[in-house]
């Protein structure tokens, strides 16, 4: 099999490439150049810095596989950064890393597999793909704490058919041990946590730079609509946020809703964060067929799944949930198998 391995410069994709090579496949490594700042500068944080590309190049050389850097800056700007900015400007809480996986790493790279004369795309995600003879299925990775099936929950059947996650069967510790055994320079490399195009800065600072027009001042109101203060723009806020609200009242207040049309940020008490269900949009039936009824629902990358019931595009939680925001991804599970993935269009109390 000819495998195109997306190498970020981290330990997981390094080991993914090594495992494909050990299995006897013909392997080509690629790193996607995703972002450069307004003046062409490379990112210094996140998963895609110049030094990360250098690590990927060195690992590829050690594994004796061809390695290339592909220019995906246009796709990344259009598909990820612009959507991220647009999402925040519209009062949603987008997850750019999920968009990047979906729009760039999978959609755009899978679309070019034939061009690159490759059969499958390989990444270092902690998840598992299985084929039961009739259809493909996506499962949580062997390491529960590192599982990334949530960010992959919007992959389609045809995408899963051309995708492999060789480290999904390993714990993170086993991945590092494998890298160390092979003498890979990335064996002890820390994980990237920042959003790559934001860098070490606060993402609100980034949004202020790239979308200053969205800095429309507006009111901070309580749930009854009474003004509690003013703010300089809704892009400073996200649902569930407690700190930095700029209002001083005795009891803790949280952002419970954002109304972009009027630049209004609605504050409430903790119990007012409770959400009983959500409307989903852009549903992908990862497992191949639409499902309804009882599911396990996960709405944060590292959150626990909660019981819920799905009726068409309406998902009702068995227990009310806090800090569920429009724009987040909702992954639906049956035990460790991903049934589907969607975006949260709106919430209801």
């Amino acid at each position: 099999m000819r495998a195109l391995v997306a190498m970020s410069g981290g330990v997981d994709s390094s080991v993914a490439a090594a495992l494909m090579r050990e299995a006897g496949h013909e392997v080509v490594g690629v790193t996607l150049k995703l972002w450069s700042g307004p003046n062409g500068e490379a990112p210094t944080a996140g998963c895609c810095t110049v030094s990360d590309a250098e690590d990927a190049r060195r690992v590829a050389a050690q594994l004796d596989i061809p390695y290339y850097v592909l220019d995906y800056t246009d796709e990344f700007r259009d598909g990820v950064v612009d959507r991220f900015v647009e999402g925040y400007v519209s009062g949603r809480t987008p997850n750019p890393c999920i968009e990047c996986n979906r729009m760039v790493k999978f959609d755009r790279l899978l679309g070019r597999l034939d061009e690159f004369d490759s059969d499958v795309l390989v990444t270092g995600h902690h998840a598992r793909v299985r084929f039961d003879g009739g259809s493909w299925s996506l499962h949580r990775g062997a390491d529960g704490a590192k599982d990334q099936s949530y960010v992959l929950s919007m992959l389609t059947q045809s995408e899963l058919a051309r995708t492999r996650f060789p480290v999904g069967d390993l714990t993170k510790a086993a991945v590092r041990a494998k890298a160390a055994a092979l003498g890979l320079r990335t064996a002890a490399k820390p994980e990237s946590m920042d959003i790559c195009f934001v860098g070490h800065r606060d993402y609100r600072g980034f949004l202020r730079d790239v979308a200053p027009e969205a800095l429309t001042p507006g009111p901070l109101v309580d749930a009854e609509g009474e003004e509690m203060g003013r703010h300089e723009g809704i892009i400073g806020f996200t649902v569930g946020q407690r700190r930095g609200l700029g209002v001083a009242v005795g009891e803790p207040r949280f952002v419970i809703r954002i109304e972009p049309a009027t630049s209004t940020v609605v504050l409430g008490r903790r119990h007012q964060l409770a959400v009983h269900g959500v409307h989903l949009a852009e549903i992908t039936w990862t497992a191949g067929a639409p499902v309804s009824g009882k599911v396990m629902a996960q709405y944060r990358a590292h959150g626990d799944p909660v019981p819920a019931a799905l009726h068409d595009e309406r998902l009702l939680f068995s227990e009310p949930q806090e800090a569920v925001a429009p724009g987040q991804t909702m992954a639906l599970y049956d035990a460790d198998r991903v049934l589907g993935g969607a975006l949260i269009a709106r919430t209801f109390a």
Partner: protein
Amino acid sequence: MIYLDHAATTPMRPGVWDAMRPYADDVFGNSSGIHEVSRRAKNALEEARERIAGTIGAKQGDIVLTSGGTESDNLALKGAVFSQSPRRGVVTVATEHEAVLETVDFLRRFGLPTAIVGVDHQGAVDPESLLNAVDANTALVSIMTINNETGVIQDLPTIVEAVKRHEPEVLVHTDAVQAFSTEPIDVDALGVDLLTITGHKFGGSKGAGLLYVREGTPLEPVLHGGGQELGRRSGTHDVAGAVGLAAAMETAAADRARFRAEIGEIRNEFEKRIVAAFADVVVNTPDRARSPQHLNVRFPGVRNETLLLRLDRAGVAASAGSACQSGASEVSHVLEAMGLTPDQARESVRFSFGWNSSADEALEASDILIGLVEELR
């Protein structure tokens, strides 16, 4: 591997490394020292300088040895502008190498007057628009002899003469990095004051180049220090590099007639086969004077990033435009200056032939290329 990227760099010519080796080994002396091992190094250095000067019709004292093309371009531009002359402006052309354009941008950021003149669809600069940008403030005009991406040859003697007639005190620099294999370089015939050459483009080692500085040309150094190179470029001499540069220049100059005829024919045959294979293929510089080494060609509907990757997998080395630090390809500023859209520039690939290119290899490469382009469309 079939290597068709000689405009990027070349393998060393036979004899060059042998000539250099003693000065990386036994004769390791610092050419500024007084003892024997240093005297021998100094002798080798000055003998090399004399031979280098002889290949471009220059005097020995006019040769400033540098680390290569980028340093020479920097020294020419900054050196002229920072010299005592009241003139502080620089005029150059949009298709120049980054070593010139980025230096001009640096000078602009320091508040100096700079101008970048455009080119026509064939990559040629119009002497009239160049002259319009040259005024009493202009210290230097920089214009390359042969473009690295397209092989376009500028009409340098005519341009130099026009500039000198227009403003006699303006210095003219040319980056001749791509020219030495194929063009006789005579600094008096060209009429330039400053000229850049680097050895690795024609079979020398990397890291050894020169800036020709016409006698009497005011030049402030970029590297200040021990005062080597008559104060124009400080730093301990790379004697092995200088000896290798001399050997490569003499070998390349002696091989020039064969190179033009044989390598030119190989390039032409390669081009003919590709143009015949596809109705819509576009040679980006078809009509006017072009180096016999270069071919810049566009395959509509095929992204150059993909084609270059597939060519590499098939054992053919070629390139496109310039690459950023990470190695990702970027849209060619040269092709954009010639009026191509960014998408058209992304469909363009450069094949460049060199001293050891063979007709058989070129034939095989053209078959591989044609097969890949057919598959990718």
